[in-house]
């Protein structure tokens, strides 16, 4: 093996070492806390107890169903939000008076937690997939919309000059210049939205659903199964982490292509 490959592997191993150490310390502290505290094991599970809970929902197959339900809701709400937010954000960013008109209302709606809409959502859409999807939609829409608006507003003047010079048409300019030029900023908005949408998926499912990872939390609580609760929380964190890593990867690829690589 070449020297370079050895150094590369060593670097990777060291990075992995930090990760392992981090979790080891975390699990140790958790284990010691549950061992030495007097709290009932049904209320505060040990790491091993949580593992048992995890294996149980894994073995009876219910976990897969919950993950599938959550993923379906997440991707439908998120995809619709991204598409609508990018398209409308591009239009509002391009026709500035339109944005000036919309912005006050947007700024008022934006800080409202999607959960606040929950009573309306449940009244309108009933119990099922829709409440979670709508919650995710609301959570994902605003970051993407605002990043698309500001991305389009901040397109370097020179691209627009070049487009005008070569006679790029009024509608052509959207997909030839505006979208690609604003895309790096839109992408960072999408990244931001992904995180908060995943957070609100759980909230949405805790209230308006009969399945999914968020519902599983309520279900575990009702059955006083804190071990399953902790296992579920871990799965939620893990999937959130994987989604973020996936998007980070996509974003990195794209920035590289645009020549905007972050060091």
């Amino acid at each position: 093996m070449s020297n370079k490959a050895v150094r590369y592997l060593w670097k990777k191993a060291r990075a992995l070492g930090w990760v392992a150490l981090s979790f080891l310390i975390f699990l140790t502290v958790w284990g010691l806390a549950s061992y030495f505290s007097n709290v009932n094991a049904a209320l505060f599970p040990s790491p091993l107890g949580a593992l048992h809970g995890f294996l149980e929902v894994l073995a009876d197959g219910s976990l897969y169903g919950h993950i599938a339900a959550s993923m379906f809701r997440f991707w439908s709400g998120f995809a619709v939000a991204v598409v609508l937010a990018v398209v409308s954000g591009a239009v509002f960013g391009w026709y500035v008076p339109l944005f000036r008109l919309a912005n006050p209302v947007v700024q008022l709606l934006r800080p409202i937690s999607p959960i606040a809409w929950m009573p309306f959502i449940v009244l309108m859409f009933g119990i099922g997939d829709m409440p979670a999807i709508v919650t995710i939609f609301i959570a994902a829409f605003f970051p993407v919309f605002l990043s698309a608006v500001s991305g389009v507003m901040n397109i370097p003047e020179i691209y627009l000059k070049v487009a005008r010079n070569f006679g790029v048409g009024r509608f052509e300019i959207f997909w030839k210049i505006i979208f690609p030029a604003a895309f790096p900023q839109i992408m960072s908005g999408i990244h931001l939205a992904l995180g908060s949408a995943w957070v609100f998926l759980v909230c949405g499912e805790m209230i308006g659903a009969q399945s999914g990872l968020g519902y599983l939390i309520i279900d575990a609580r009702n059955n006083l199964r804190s071990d399953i609760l902790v296992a579920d929380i871990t799965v939620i964190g893990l999937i959130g982490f994987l989604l973020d890593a996936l998007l980070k990867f996509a974003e990195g690829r794209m920035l590289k292509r645009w020549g905007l690589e972050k060091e």
Partner: protein
Amino acid sequence: MYIDITNVNKQFTHKGKLFTALENVNLSIDRGEFICLLGPSGCGKSTLLNAIAGFDPPSSGTVVIDGCEVRKPSSRNVTIFQNYGLLPWRNVLRNVELALESRKDITRAKREEIARKNLDLVGLSGFADASPHQLSGGMQQRVAIARALTADPEIIFMDEPFGALDAITRMKLQDDIRAIRKENRKTIIFVTHDIEEAVYLADRVVVMTPNPGKVKSVIKVELGPSRNRTGQDFFMLRQKILEIFSMKHDYPIEYSI
């Protein structure tokens, strides 16, 4: 004349203050001429170029090209910018092809053929698939030149095109621009603050001064097609232009000994 600039004025308001970027500019340019607009920053040379190119029309006065008043940019005239204006999400070939994409009479295959020919002309045929950011500044500006030539314009506007390049690369590109021009006699209007560059390239140098921006004088460069940067007559012309700039100090200087 081919281009007639008559009584052009341009005012801006900046932070509530009105200032004059161009004052009463008159200039006529012949077809096929190489004109350099020369002056320090703030003299309005880029403003004048933007007015002729149609990006930013004058406040008053007219710019007429070939009998038509200029009101907006035309794809018959192409501008080359200091920071190249390449689209980073397209590869080099697709950047060059942009010049012909709005032409419905040219097929996709023909468009690519013309683009490749011009990339070859600027010596970048091996970089068709590269991304702009993988190229050096000089190479990126060559791509922009290939793109401009692909549009087959009548006038090429150049706004300090070599300003961001190192001195050696700049001289190389100056030679390239002269060589390209020898092949197809486009009208070129070239903005620069580099006296040597202006004398090396131009048929006529339009010397501009700031506050307010106006044309101080127009100098015909009669050095023929092959110019020597170190020649006697070259130095004489540089000297002459330097004198014009120092004539700006027309206030009395007080001496005390």
